[in-house]
């Protein structure tokens, strides 16, 4: 069972390998693995489907009803709130990627004094419990006049998201051999635009994960949005939290709204999920 070095020639991820005739067959050692995946899928989805289906049934009697969904839509402007969340999330994701990716590259490849410290600080910042800094943050932002503005809220999220983005991209760039980057740079990246054109495809898995996770983080957040958003608009997270939830009947409305609210992040994930296994070989997808 010696671990052999990769053979010479272009690397072939499993994706490509499965195209080779005979390999696919060999990999299908019975349907055992598929059964396991199926069981796991059921465990993952059953409680959620159970609850989602429950939102269509009257509490206590089990009769089908649209009442809870109507309640949810009557209580808050569901689609408007989701629009606000989407707006916020897109801006935050864009800025986090914009700021964190070059930083990750710099920390990984461009040696400068203090780069190690910057990286450690970024990692440590990922672990700061938000509740601890939210009140001082709020006061600072009030003094800057940023509270009650969408840009202020976005700024808080961006600040909170950069450490993770830096952490991920740095690790990612560290794994890419210097020679590869040199070659790509020589070919056409003498300036900022070029840098992006080259780095973007190389860093796709990292960027994909950051984009998906950051989108989700903003989408589902409550406390920051509650404190920093203007009175006139609210995110879907805040909106759902405002649904009356003291009575069991109303919990169904909340679950209904939340299940609906989970759809956009899932869609975002579906768009990006194939980049998770992409990398230095492009186009050899699926």
């Amino acid at each position, binding site marked *: *069972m010696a671990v052999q070095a990769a053979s010479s020639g272009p690397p072939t991820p499993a994706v490509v390998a499965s195209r080779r005739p005979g390999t696919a067959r060999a990999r299908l050692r019975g349907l055992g693995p598929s059964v396991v995946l199926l069981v796991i899928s059921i465990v993952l*989805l059953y409680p959620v489907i159970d609850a989602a289906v429950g939102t269509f049934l009257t509490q206590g009697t089990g009769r089908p009803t649209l009442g809870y969904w109507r309640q949810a839509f009557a209580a808050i402007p569901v689609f408007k709130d989701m629009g606000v969340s989407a707006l916020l999330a897109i801006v935050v994701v864009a800025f986090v990627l914009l700021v964190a990716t070059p930083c990750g590259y710099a920390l990984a490849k*461009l040696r400068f004094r203090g780069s190690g410290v910057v990286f450690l600080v970024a990692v440590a910042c990922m672990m700061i419990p938000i509740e*601890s800094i939210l009140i001082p943050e709020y006061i600072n932002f009030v003094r800057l006049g940023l509270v009650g503005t969408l840009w202020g809220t976005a700024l808080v999220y961006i600040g*909170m998201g950069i450490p993770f983005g830096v952490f991920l991209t740095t690790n990612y760039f560290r794994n890419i051999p210097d020679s590869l980057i040199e070659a790509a740079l020589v070919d056409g990246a003498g300036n900022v635009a070029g840098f992006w054109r080259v780095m973007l495809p190389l860093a796709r898995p990292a960027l994909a994960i950051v984009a998906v996770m950051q989108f989700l983080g903003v989408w589902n957040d409550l406390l920051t949005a509650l404190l920093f958003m203007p009175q006139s608009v609210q995110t879907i997270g805040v909106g759902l939290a405002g649904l009356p939830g003291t009575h069991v009947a109303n919990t169904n409305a909340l679950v209904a709204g939340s299940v609906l609210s989970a759809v956009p992040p899932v869609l975002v994930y579906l768009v990006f999920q194939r980049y998770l296994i992409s990398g230095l070989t492009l186009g050899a997808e699926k």
Partner: protein
Amino acid sequence: MTQPFSGSSGAATFTDVAAPEDRGPAAEVQRVPRRVGARSGSSATFRRRAQTGILFALPATVLVAGIMLLPLFQAAYYSFTTWNGLTSTYVGFSSYTQLFFHTVSIGQIVENNAWVVLSIPVGLALALVAAFLTATRAVGWKLFRKLVFFPVALSWVVIGIVFGAFLAQDGGLNAVMRGSGLARLTQDWLGSPALAMPALLVTFGWAMFGINTIIFISGLATIPPDLFDAARVDGAGTFRVLLHVVLPLMRRFVGLAFVVTLISGFTGIFGLIYVMTSGGPGFSTTTLEFQVYQEAFSLGNFGTAAALGMVLFAMMVVVTGVVGVISGRSSSI
């Protein structure tokens, strides 16, 4: 809950240079860039690289310093005072001593946090198995990869509500048990001091499973399948392949997934507790983070809350450091 979960980098571990066709976008020859001399390593180049490096890192550093570090130091300052938001009195370390020696059941609270940490490897092992099975391209692997994220997309509050109902006396879990002849085992899971924490941890593991699996899928994709074939040729069974070939190569990703789950275990699990058990019965599901919330927002006691927050932060840094050492990466966590 705004902190995104950390994920892996799908980096490859190539030992040779990729062929020219595999490099990035089309190699359009443009005007010769200034960096062509990079390989020569002149000191001017190093200086320029360092300058570029600082430039690239500057926006991120400035933003993080202002938005994360500054309030952290402010909170640290307040942890040495009693601060109700309006007035503050310097009290030295008394918030910390009050925390460690006078908080009711501080032992139980810390023990709960320990259980969270201990439960993480179990979840990681399951995720690794799932990722491995996906990598073998078993029938349905693409669908599985799409589905695995769905629990991740739900907010902690909703997961709490769903599982709170699922684990109730008249909930889904007990129904399943009755249906499969395990009626003797049915109970009020969240109402039992001994079982509430395990039930909570299972819920937490369920929620984090998708992320960890995705991390590992990304990681496994970087392992050349020739290794799998080579191992098989040697006569190794699947399990031994997993243990002796895959795991060592995945060490970095395991470490990454551990940190991600750890951070959520210290920060995100709050939402679950809030909705499912409010820290009870008694203190059996109260974690340090939940206690922070109660101190700060229920009691208006920001000084103590800030102190608790500092302790939480320190605990996470320490555990992460230990994990970093174990996973053998000294230069990065």
